[in-house]
C-alpha cells in the first residue's frame, strides 16, 4: 500500500482515491512483465548448458550451472564480427551521406525562396509516404544496372536522400535567428560557410535525433539487404542471423540461437539503456522510422 501511495503522490488529491486508474496501472505492470519474457528467455537460454536437456529449454528459471558454451558455439558458427562490421559500414555510410544531403536541402527549404518551392516540397513529402521497401523490385534492377549488385554501396544508396531528415533540419534551421546569419553575411561569409559555421553547430540536437532514428532503422533492415547481398561475407547482422537461425533450427540448438540473437541485439539495447531519454525523444519527434 505504501508503494501505491508513493506512485500516486503526484496525482491531484481529488482523484487519488479512484480505483480505475490503479487497475489500469496494475494491468500495465503485468503486461510489461509479459513483454520482457522473450528477453528473459533469451538470457536464460544463452547461459543454459546443453546437459540440461531439450525439456528444460523453456524453463525461465536460470540453470544452476551457467555456461558460455552457447556463446562460443554461436560465435564459431556465425561470422558475427564480420556481420557487425558490415552493418556498421552500412549504417555509417548511409548516415554520413544523409548528413550532407539533408543539411543542404533542409537549409534551402528553411531559408531560401525559390521558384517551385511548394512543388518540390510536396515531392519530398511524397517520399515519406512511398515507403522505400515497397519499391524493392525496381530498385533492385536499378542497383544491378549500376553494377552495385552484391555491394554494400548498393544496400546504402536508396537511403542517401531522406525526406524525413530534410524536414527535421528545416525545422531546426528555421528556429535559428536570422540576425546571426546577417552578421556573418556582413563579414563576407559565403552560403556554404554560413551553413557550416552557424546553422550546423547550432542544430546538433536535431542531428543527433536524426542519427538515432537513421541508425536504428538501418541496423534492423532485412529484406532489402537480403535481396542486394549474395556473398556470405557481405551479410549484415540481420541477414546473418536469419541464415544462422535457419541452420541452428535444423539441429534444434535453441541455446545457440538464443546466444546468437543476444549478440545481434545487444549493441543497440545497451546503447538504448545508456541514452534512454535521447532515444525516446528522438522517436517521438520522428513519427516515421
Amino acid at each position, binding site marked *: 500500500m505504501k508503494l501505491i501511495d508513493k506512485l500516486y503522490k503526484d496525482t*491531484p488529491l481529488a482523484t487519488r482515491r479512484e480505483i480505475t486508474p490503479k487497475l489500469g496501472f496494475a494491468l500495465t505492470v503485468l503486461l510489461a512483465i509479459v513483454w520482457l519474457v522473450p528477453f528473459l*528467455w533469451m538470457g536464460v537460454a544463452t547461459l543454459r548448458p546443453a546437459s540440461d536437456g531439450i525439456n528444460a529449454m523453456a524453463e525461465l528459471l536460470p540453470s544452476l550451472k551457467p555456461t558460455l558454451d552457447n556463446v562460443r558455439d554461436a560465435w564459431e558458427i556465425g561470422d558475427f564480427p564480420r556481420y557487425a562490421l558490415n552493418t556498421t559500414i552500412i549504417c555509417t555510410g548511409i548516415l554520413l551521406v544523409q548528413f550532407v544531403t539533408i543539411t*543542404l536541402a533542409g537549409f534551402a527549404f528553411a531559408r531560401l525562396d525559390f521558384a517551385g518551392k511548394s512543388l518540390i516540397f510536396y515531392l519530398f513529402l511524397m517520399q515519406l509516404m512511398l515507403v522505400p521497401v515497397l519499391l524493392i*523490385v525496381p530498385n533492385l534492377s536499378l542497383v544491378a544496372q549500376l553494377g552495385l549488385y552484391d555491394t554494400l554501396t548498393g544496400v546504402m544508396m536508396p537511403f542517401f536522400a531522406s525526406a524525413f531528415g530534410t524536414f527535421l533540419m528545416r525545422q531546426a534551421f528555421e528556429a535559428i535567428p536570422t540576425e546571426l546569419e546577417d552578421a556573418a553575411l556582413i563579414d563576407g561569409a559565403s552560403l556554404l560557410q554560413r551553413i557550416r559555421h552557424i546553422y550546423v553547430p547550432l542544430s546538433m540536437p536535431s542531428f543527433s535525433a536524426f542519427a538515432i532514428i537513421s541508425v536504428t532503422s538501418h541496423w534492423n533492415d532485412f529484406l532489402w539487404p537480403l535481396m542486394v547481398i549474395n556473398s556470405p561475407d557481405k551479410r549484415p547482422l540481420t541477414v546473418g542471423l536469419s541464415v544462422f537461425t535457419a541452420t541452428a533450427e535444423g539441429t534444434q540448438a535453441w541455446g545457440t540461437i538464443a546466444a546468437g540473437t543476444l549478440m545481434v541485439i545487444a549493441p543497440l539495447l545497451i546503447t538504448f539503456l545508456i541514452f534512454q531519454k535521447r532515444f525516446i525523444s528522438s522517436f517521438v519527434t520522428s513519427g516515421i522510422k
Partner: protein
Amino acid sequence: MSLAEPAALPVAASAAPRLHVLKRFSSRFKASLPAYLLLLPSLIFLALFTYGAMGRVLVDALYQRATPKAPLRFVGLDNLSAVLADPYFTGAVINNLLYAVGTAIPSIGLALLFALALSRTNAVSSALRAALFLPVLIPMVAASALFLFIFLPNVGLLDYYIGRLLPVLPNWLGDPDIALSAIMVITIWKNAGYYMLFFLAGLQAVPEDVMEAAHLDGAGPFMRFRHIILPELKPTFLFVIVIATLNAVTQVDHVFVMTKGGPSNSTNLVLFYIYQQAVEHYDIGKASAATLLTLAALMGLTALSFRTMANREGGP
C-alpha cells in the same frame, strides 16, 4: 513576388511582352539557382530511387519475359490481369487486410492503455516504459528467432507453461487457421511500445486543471477519458493509425524467417508475394504489377497521411 504580377512598364510591340516574361522568368530562375544546387544531391537520389522507381514499376508491369534469359516482350495489361486472377495474390491481399486490422487495433489499444497508465514521470513508470519500448529496438528478424522458440510445439515456451493448464494444444505456426494470428502476436508485441510514445506525447496536451474541474463536477475516470482525453488525442489516433497501416504492408521479415508464407499460404502477405515473384520466380512483370496495385491501394492512405503530415510539418 509572383509570376502573375501585372507588368509595370508599358510594352509597345506584340513580341515584347513575351520577351519580358522570359526575362523575368530567367531572373527568377537565376535567383533560385543556389536553392536548386542545395537540393540537387537529394533530388538525384530521390529521382533514382523514388520517382524513377515508380516510373520503372509502371513500365515493367507492361512487359514479360518467357524465361529469365529471354528478351522482353510487351504484354500490355496481361501482368495486371494475371496478378488479379492469381489466387495466391488475392489470398495475400485478404491475409494482409486481416493482419492489418488484427495488429493495428490491439497494438493501438494497448499503446493507449500503457500511455494512460504511465503518463506521470517517476522512476517506476519510466522503467516500465523502457520495458515496453525494448521490442521496438530489436530487428524483426531477432524477434522472429525468439518467437520461433516460444511457438515451438511441445517443448516451446508457450506449450511448456500453458501445456500444464490445457490438455490439447495447437501447433501455433503449423496450423493454417492459427499461424496468421501467431505472427500478429509478434507484431503487436513489437509495435505497441512504439505507438505508446505518440500517445504519451499527445497526453501532454491534456490540461491538468480541466481534468480536475471535471472531477469536481462529478465526472468519473471514464467520463473524463471520453470527454476530455479522447478529443485531445484525435490527431494522435489518426497519425498512429496511418503508421500502423503502413507497417502492416511494409514489414514482412517475420513471415520470411518464421513461415515463408505457409502453411498453405495462410501467412502470405502482399510484400512477401512481391518478393516471391521477383526473387524466386524471376517474374519481374508480375512482381511489378503487384507492386503497382499495392501502391495504388496505398494512395488513399497517402492522401490521408499527407494531410496529417502536412499539419505536423506546417507546410512549406
